[in-house]
């Protein structure tokens, strides 16, 4: 295989396209194959006969499945995700309005998570194997076991209501961002810190680290300049792999903090049984994950000179 980073990126992009098509197939299956009567599922239990008929015609439910999927893909390619059965607005439009808020929250949470992960990983790796290390592991497991939405409610109760430190949510503002990004970033950061810790402990035992130490490099220089650069690479991969998990947290955090994003939209659609809207958010979330992984691939090319050589 040729070793150019460009080729690597092209392969990864082709790959992202395959995953996207696969994801639309799953979404199609959920919306049009799994339910006994898709029209009924789309319109909800309260729909009358006329609505059901119009939906069947609109969706072409009388045609063969393959043809239906092809039409579904065609509409998707034009950015047409159907219409909400509650507000009658195009789903793509409603999602487009909510997307920036979710992207902002995801980015803020990811930043908090990376800072916590980096600091936590480095702090515990310096004394690997000891009681401090053990405490770090148990601490991280404990944090990861707390339900995000519950932590969010506790945060709102104490920081928002009792101590009046932050607003109680509802609007996109910097102060409103603090709660959800701290809760999400904190739990995700606990996970990252463990990964980084394990990688660091491994790298710190490598011969090149001993060589650096033998040349007289101090502990911190070895840790930050030599060890971290290698140990952080698998972490970058995990950020991509776990991006879907982060969005899970975003859905719940948005609901708790009344953050007007995609997750809250999904929640509202569930309450109204607005299936086109639910399916739209699922597809868009999957595309966001694929997109995040493309960004990760780009980052990889930038920070790892070996990429493309394998």
């Amino acid at each position, binding site marked *: 295989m040729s070793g150019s980073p460009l080729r690597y990126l092209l392969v990864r992009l082709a790959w992202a396209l*395959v*995953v*996207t098509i*696969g*994801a639309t*197939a*799953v*979404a199609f299956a*959920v*919306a049009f194959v*799994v*339910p006994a009567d*898709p029209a009924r*599922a789309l319109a909800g239990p309260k729909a009358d006969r006329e609505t059901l008929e119009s939906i069947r015609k609109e969706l072409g439910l009388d045609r063969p499945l393959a043809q239906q999927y092809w039409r579904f893909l065609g509409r998707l390619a034009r950015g047409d995700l159907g219409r909400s059965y509650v507000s009658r607005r195009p789903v793509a439009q409603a999602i487009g309005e909510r997307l920036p808020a979710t992207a902002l929250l995801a980015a803020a949470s990811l930043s908090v998570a990376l800072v916590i992960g980096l600091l936590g990983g480095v702090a515990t790796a310096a004394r690997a194997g000891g009681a401090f290390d053990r405490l770090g*592991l*148990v601490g991280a*497991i*404990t944090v*990861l*076991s*707390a*339900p*995000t*939405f*519950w932590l969010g*409610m*506790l945060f*709102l*109760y104490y920081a928002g*209501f009792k101590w009046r430190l932050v607003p109680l949510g509802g609007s996109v503002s910097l102060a409103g961002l603090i709660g959800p990004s701290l809760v999400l970033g904190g739990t995700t950061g606990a996970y990252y810190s463990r990964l980084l810790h394990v990688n660091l402990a491994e790298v710190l035992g490598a011969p090149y680290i001993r060589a650096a130490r033998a040349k007289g490099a101090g502990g911190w220089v070895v840790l930050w300049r030599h060890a971290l650069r290698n140990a952080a690479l698998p972490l970058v991969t995990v950020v991509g*792999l776990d991006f*879907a*998990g982060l*969005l*899970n947290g975003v*859905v*719940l955090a948005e*609901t*708790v903090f009344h953050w007007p994003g995609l*997750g809250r939209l*999904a*929640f509202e659609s*569930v*309450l109204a*049984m607005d*299936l086109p809207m*639910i*399916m739209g*958010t*699922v597809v868009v*979330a*999957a595309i966001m*994950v*694929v997109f995040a992984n493309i960004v990760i691939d780009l980052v990889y090319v930038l920070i790892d000179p070996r990429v493309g050589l394998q």
Partner: protein
Amino acid sequence: MRISGLVWVGASMVVVLGGVALGGAHLAPFDPALQVADSLGTPLPPRAGFYLGTDDLGRDVLSRLVVGARLSLLVGVAAMAITIFIGSAVGLIAGYYGGLVDLLLMRATDVMLAFPGLLLAVALVAVLEPGVSTVLVVIGLVSWTGVARVVRAEVLSLRTRDFVLAGHAMGGSGLRIMWRHILPNVAPTVLALAALSTSTTIMLDAGLSFLGIGVPPPLPSWGRMIQEASPYYRTAPWLMIFPGMAVFFSVLAFNLLGHGLIERFRK
């Protein structure tokens, strides 16, 4: 061989949970569905007799938590069984046969990994009949990917080992080799994954209930208790604090057990 302390702590917590789940209504001080405090419309804080407080309908929070344990554990464990079954089957087959089979199965896994599991579960529950079985099947369907990846990696490292090659040389069929020779060697990992998966499934179940589409009422569910408590989180925080602690405790129990098992098997 020293068994990691985490295993003991985790296992004891799981035993406590199991005991509460088995005891169910026999352990609860009150009937969880009945108004037992004379305070309809106003949740009252923890006090003698009602140690975790009462909710807006005058029901005892402790009794509801105790009775809810069985459902949470049942959904968590059943969904875990589905997760482990699909995940190990996909991982075993992909890792053992390799080639095109591996490629296709792992691509399918990648596609599933692109979905935030909670959102996909929300969509599935929305198009299916609501009910306990729907919830646990859906949770199982969206959470097997991690198990498949880990099992596949293990199988890949096993398939070229001498005992597997010897099995081939003696004319063993693929299925027999997978079942008799590879599976027993992956079993410890699968056991640890089972514990970790249970923590994930309990968390997902709570998340779904919190979004209002989990196990339908009147079955008591911890996640729904938190959701129902949200309008009262300022005036009656105990309504969300204690069910959250119950979810937290269960997830922590299985997480500690799982991580402890992983540590133990690594040695």
